[in-house]
């Protein structure tokens, strides 16, 4: 059998394939990117909430089963998690009684059992495309004990 044309596929088919591949890849990138941008939580306009976490300023102390917390920063705190370490292990939970949050300059006292280590992790309320969402500032925990 004699092969005169050395092209594997015709230029028309190649062009159609190329365009289809580009469209499909563009679609995949678009969907992926839309997903990423939809997950961004913002605070104070368009600022990423991760930056707002860095602006949180807390004063906290612990005495005889009571946690004293004051919000000295300019960011309202909507929730608080407590990471405690005792002989039985480590646990993280929402601070009981911290239901109304702490506004700017606000302060409160909360009953909490004694442990070896206590770390306060602030939770901020931010905005997403789908509405409001809480964000836990994991990297901005503050040791009290």
């Amino acid at each position: 059998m004699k092969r005169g044309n050395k092209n594997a596929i015709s230029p028309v088919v190649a062009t159609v394939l190329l365009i289809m591949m580009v469209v499909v890849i563009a679609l995949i990138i678009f969907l992926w990117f839309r997903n990423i941008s939809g997950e961004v939580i913002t605070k104070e306009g368009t600022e990423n909430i991760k930056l707002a976490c860095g602006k949180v300023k807390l004063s906290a102390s612990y005495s005889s089963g009571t946690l004293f917390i004051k919000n000295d920063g300019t960011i309202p705190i909507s929730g608080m998690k407590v990471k405690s370490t005792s002989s039985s292990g480590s646990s993280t939970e929402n601070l009981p009684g911290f239901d109304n949050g702490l506004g700017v300059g606000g302060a409160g006292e909360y009953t909490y059992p004694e442990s070896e280590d206590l770390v306060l992790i602030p939770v901020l309320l931010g905005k997403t495309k789908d509405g409001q969402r809480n964000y836990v500032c994991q990297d901005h925990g503050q040791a009290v004990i």
Partner: protein
Amino acid sequence: MIKNKLGVSGMIGYVLLIGIVMTIAGFMYIFLRSYVPQEELTCPDGGSISVLKYTCVFNSAGEYKLNITLKNSGRFDLYGYSIYATNTTGQKIATSDLSKYFDFESGGGAVQIDGIQNIYFNPNPGSNGLITSKSTSHMFKEIPYKIFSVDITPLIKVETKDNRIDTAVCGDAKIKENIECVSV
């Protein structure tokens, strides 16, 4: 046979290049714009409040009454303040809000708004609040617990970048005053 070895013409090459660059730049802008820090509402240096004098008394029913004279010792007019008390010995951070016991008749127009733990010297438009070097006396009555100290944090009106007037909490200008109460 292909005589022209160019894949696409020079013109289309440029158009594609610019188009791709603009698309990537658009994606990067959308993705990174949230990482640009916004202007933080901060109190200017020079905002300061001080306690000139105080009297604290308590009655047989265990109700405390605090009369405190505050002075604007800073360079800016003060819009208001927040006041918290410690009610146990050894308590480092004052967490008991005294603003809810504020006596409205004592402050010469000062008010406390429900739900907001601040006292405003005079929130009316045109008022400058407590102006520099002036002082005022405020009364807090029927406080149901003993007071050991108070933390007072001044508030200042500041203009934001978009020309809005907002309230800044001067956390760095917070003062602490130990309180001793006597029986009446």
